[in-house]
């Protein structure tokens, strides 16, 4: 029987075209961008408060994450050789364009910060670059939230209020994790606290997001990756704050858990978005409810 084109959609097929983004690239990019941005800020904070090894570890980590994120971003392009076309225009309407310019500003700072940090050359310039990267870092960490929310993918778009906080928290947690992993115990205090606060914000934002999205939160609630990410982040943060204070090995394990947790969270968010884009009911039903509400309001007035 020619299948009934049911009320929700045309032969059950999605209304939206599935994002062409590959998870390894773009979810990876979300994670690495967050790690880079937050690490830079953490590095600046560490440097200014006299924690040179934490600062250096964070700077190197930030530069590495930046490099990785650029690799992922370019790898996902259909025409990588045209990457520079990103600089043709500056579009405030495009988070990717804004993000590109943010990265353009951030990249040299992060690079200089790491280079001077490792080599010890030009300490003055290094400090300036470190501070610069630290100030731009949060933007690097959070603009990606606007990037994915500024799509028609139902879960992403509808979650735009919480997403930046979730990303900020997740970024802080991962940066903290990297600090825990790389810095000596003596200097890891900010990393421990960043991890703890970051994980808390990440989990709180996710919970709020799921509550507010109602039926649309289904892909989020169903996501094993998100649950795993939360668990790893919380466990890492708690472990870091407790046993991690005393044991270098424990601190490293906690850091690894935090990094993994943050990555899982980003992959989970990415996956949930893809699922919502591929299920027409997530597109059609909220829109129908919205129309019904508007109609009801019209009828009232």
């Amino acid at each position: 029987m020619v299948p009934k084109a049911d009320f929700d959609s045309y032969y059950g097929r999605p209304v939206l075209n599935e994002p062409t983004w590959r998870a390894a690239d773009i979810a990876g990019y979300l994670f690495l961008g967050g790690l880079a941005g937050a690490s830079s800020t953490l590095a600046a904070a560490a440097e200014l408060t006299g924690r040179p090894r934490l600062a250096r570890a964070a700077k190197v980590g930030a530069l590495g994450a930046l490099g990785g994120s650029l690799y992922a971003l370019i790898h996902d392009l259909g025409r990588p050789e045209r990457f520079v076309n990103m600089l043709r225009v500056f579009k405030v309407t495009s988070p990717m364009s804004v993000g590109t310019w943010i990265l353009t500003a951030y990249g040299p700072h992060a690079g200089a910060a790491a280079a001077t940090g490792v080599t010890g050359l030009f300490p003055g310039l290094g400090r300036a670059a470190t501070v610069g990267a630290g100030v731009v870092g949060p933007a690097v960490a959070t603009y990606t939230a606007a990037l994915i929310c500024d799509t028609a993918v139902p879960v992403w778009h509808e979650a735009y209020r919480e997403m930046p906080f979730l990303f900020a928290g997740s970024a802080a947690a991962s940066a903290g994790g990297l600090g825990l992993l790389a810095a000596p115990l003596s200097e890891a205090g900010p990393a421990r606290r960043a991890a703890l606060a970051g994980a808390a914000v990440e989990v709180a934002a996710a919970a709020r997001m799921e509550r507010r999205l109602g039926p649309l939160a289904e892909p989020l609630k169903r996501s094993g990756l998100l649950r795993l990410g939360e668990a790893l982040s919380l466990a890492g943060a708690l472990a870091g704050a407790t046993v991690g204070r005393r044991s270098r090995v424990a601190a490293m394990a906690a850091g690894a858990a935090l990094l993994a947790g943050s990555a899982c969270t980003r992959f989970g968010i990415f996956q949930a978005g893809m699922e919502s884009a591929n299920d027409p009911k997530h597109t059609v039903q909220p829109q129908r409810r919205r129309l019904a509400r508007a109609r009801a309001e019209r009828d009232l007035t």
Partner: protein
Amino acid sequence: MKHKVLEYLPFVGIVLAICTASWVAGRMPAEGRAFAAGLGRTAGPRRRTISR
């Protein structure tokens, strides 16, 4: 499935590289001045000999 795993390898590799580099950076002396001390070329082996 194999293909899927392969797809994620670069990402995992990048993360491991970051962790390693960062870890190494964290173990350098507090006032790390490798290049400033003119020891750039031997920074590698030198790093390995440094202990906490």
